[in-house]
């Protein structure tokens, strides 16, 4: 059993490396082509989106991207699943495109709700999980928030509600990269440590390295195996993960990527792949 588990993890690790490499390249290219920023927050959660959609989510599961500014990471994840055509990615941010800077609903089955203004996705995900509970339907609702987003009161309202109604169908993911729009979360409005603050409302909070696919897989499968009300996974991540000149830099929240930056990033990625 242990051996087969070990083999499974190795397989995930190996396949994830190539999956991630292709996804990061396409993400960088897309942002460069469209002259759009928000790359740092995309790179901090991309690993989770890929792992979740490729290895965890089942047919009846739903995903809500509450940190809507990571729309690029979601589009790239859907592209990696073969559920979004490459030609659509070239329309990112273009006139008449469905691929806006924040996700729009009502056109793709994997994007159930529109988000963008922070503090909305989680309460909507709570409503969707409540619907599953009331109807006795299978499946979970996964909702990815940012960490700065927990400065929004509506998130805490949603957490109180979700815990009170013991919504076992809900998994809350927090991209804990430590940065927000105009400073670090510690500088702006520190909620350190976030985990015990969330845990104080009732849910079991688990922390995991958000860039380790095996650790992510293990954490998510373990949480799903023992339904608790609701589950919260704090993803320890790095803003701009994997690109040295973006990592942990405030600029990577907003600034777009020019061609020189893209080439540098691609060279870094190639070097890493070759090493």
């Amino acid at each position: 059993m242990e051996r087969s588990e070990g083999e499974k993890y190795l397989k995930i690790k190996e396949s994830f490396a190539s999956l991630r490499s292709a996804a990061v390249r396409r993400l960088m290219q897309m942002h460069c082509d469209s002259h759009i920023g928000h790359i740092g927050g995309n790179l901090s959660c991309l690993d989770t989106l890929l792992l979740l959609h490729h290895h965890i989510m089942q047919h009846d599961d739903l995903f809500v991207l509450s940190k809507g500014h990571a729309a690029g990471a979601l589009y790239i994840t859907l592209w990696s699943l073969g559920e979004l055509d490459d030609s659509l990615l070239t329309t990112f941010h273009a006139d008449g495109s469905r691929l806006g800077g924040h996700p729009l609903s009502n056109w793709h089955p994997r994007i159930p709700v529109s988000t963008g203004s922070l503090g909305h996705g989680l309460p909507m995900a709570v409503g969707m999980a409540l619907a599953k509970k009331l109807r006795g339907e299978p499946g979970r609702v996964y909702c990815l928030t940012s960490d700065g987003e927990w400065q929004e009161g509506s998130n805490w309202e949603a957490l109180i509600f979700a815990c009170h109604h013991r919504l076992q169908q809900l998994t809350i993911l927090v991209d804990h990269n430590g940065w927000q729009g105009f400073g670090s979360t510690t500088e702006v409005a520190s909620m350190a440590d976030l985990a015990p603050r969330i845990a104080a409302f009732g849910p079991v909070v688990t922390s995991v390295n958000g860039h380790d696919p095996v650790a992510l897989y293990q954490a998510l499968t373990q949480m799903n195996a023992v339904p608790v009300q609701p589950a919260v996974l704090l993803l320890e991540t790095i803003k701009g993960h994997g690109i040295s000149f973006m990592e942990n830099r405030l600029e990577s929240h907003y600034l777009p990527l020019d061609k020189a930056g893209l080439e540098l990033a691609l060279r870094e990625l190639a070097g890493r792949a070759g090493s």
Partner: protein
Amino acid sequence: MRDAVCSALLSLFGRHPFVFLTGDLGFQALEPLRAVMGEKFINAGISEQNMISVAAGLAQQGMMAWTYSIGSFGYARPFEQIRNDVCLQSLPVKLVGNGGGYAYGAMGPSHHALEDYGILLTLPGMRVYVPIFGKDVQSIVERMAVSTTPGYLRLGRCECPPGYTVPPYAPWRRLLAGRGTPTLVVGPVAGSLLAACLAMELDVRPEIWGVTELPVRNSEMPAEFLAIVRQHRCLCVVEEHVAHGGVGQMVAHELLTMGVPMDALLHAHAHGYPSATCGSQSFHRRESALDAPSILRLLGLGS
């Protein structure tokens, strides 16, 4: 009208199950609904933002969702949730706001809803329902339930005068025939005006109409109403709502767009708090010249 909405929803639940979310309001009114609905009756607590977004999430999953609060609490605090999560995503969430206008009286401005429908009607797809009489509520709830758009039901206190026969529900209705200035009324404030006009001579009293569903272009203006407005070249609009974004502005826009010749638009509307003091609904109406004697003076019928 709280009892009326409770009865209407009870009737609806048996045929079209839904989820009802209240923002910790409904004491001595919604208990029968809670008793019947079981786990589908949810006290969402004092968290209106979450309540609206949860309702949106339920609607996204195909469940009909109604929310309930005091009018001002239910639309002002969670306006962004109504805008982003409900209206911009075309989700048919039904919002019920109790205490339209000055209905909460001396509870103060925080509890008054004077600009609710003007603001909500700026949102895509939103439909507003303002019952005039308690009897209207059943029909309105049925119409909202089958509507595919977001809706806002603005409840007040039924002020139907004794002996008055309420005409069958319609979005536009003649409430009282008269040969005086045509007057269009929104909501329960019609009751006090009807009470003051019932005993007046037909030749003198205003021709009173009521409009219940907004925006006014949502349902066609009756030809009979238009003919009377054309004949008088004048219309008086009465509403317990501020002028900006109100039915007065809506109707004026519609009539001008339709090319209906008008010499005057008289508008009785909420003026807020001129004396910066609190009082009953009647007190605030008097301050805004929304009481029957003031309206009659506006129509040239009082001293």
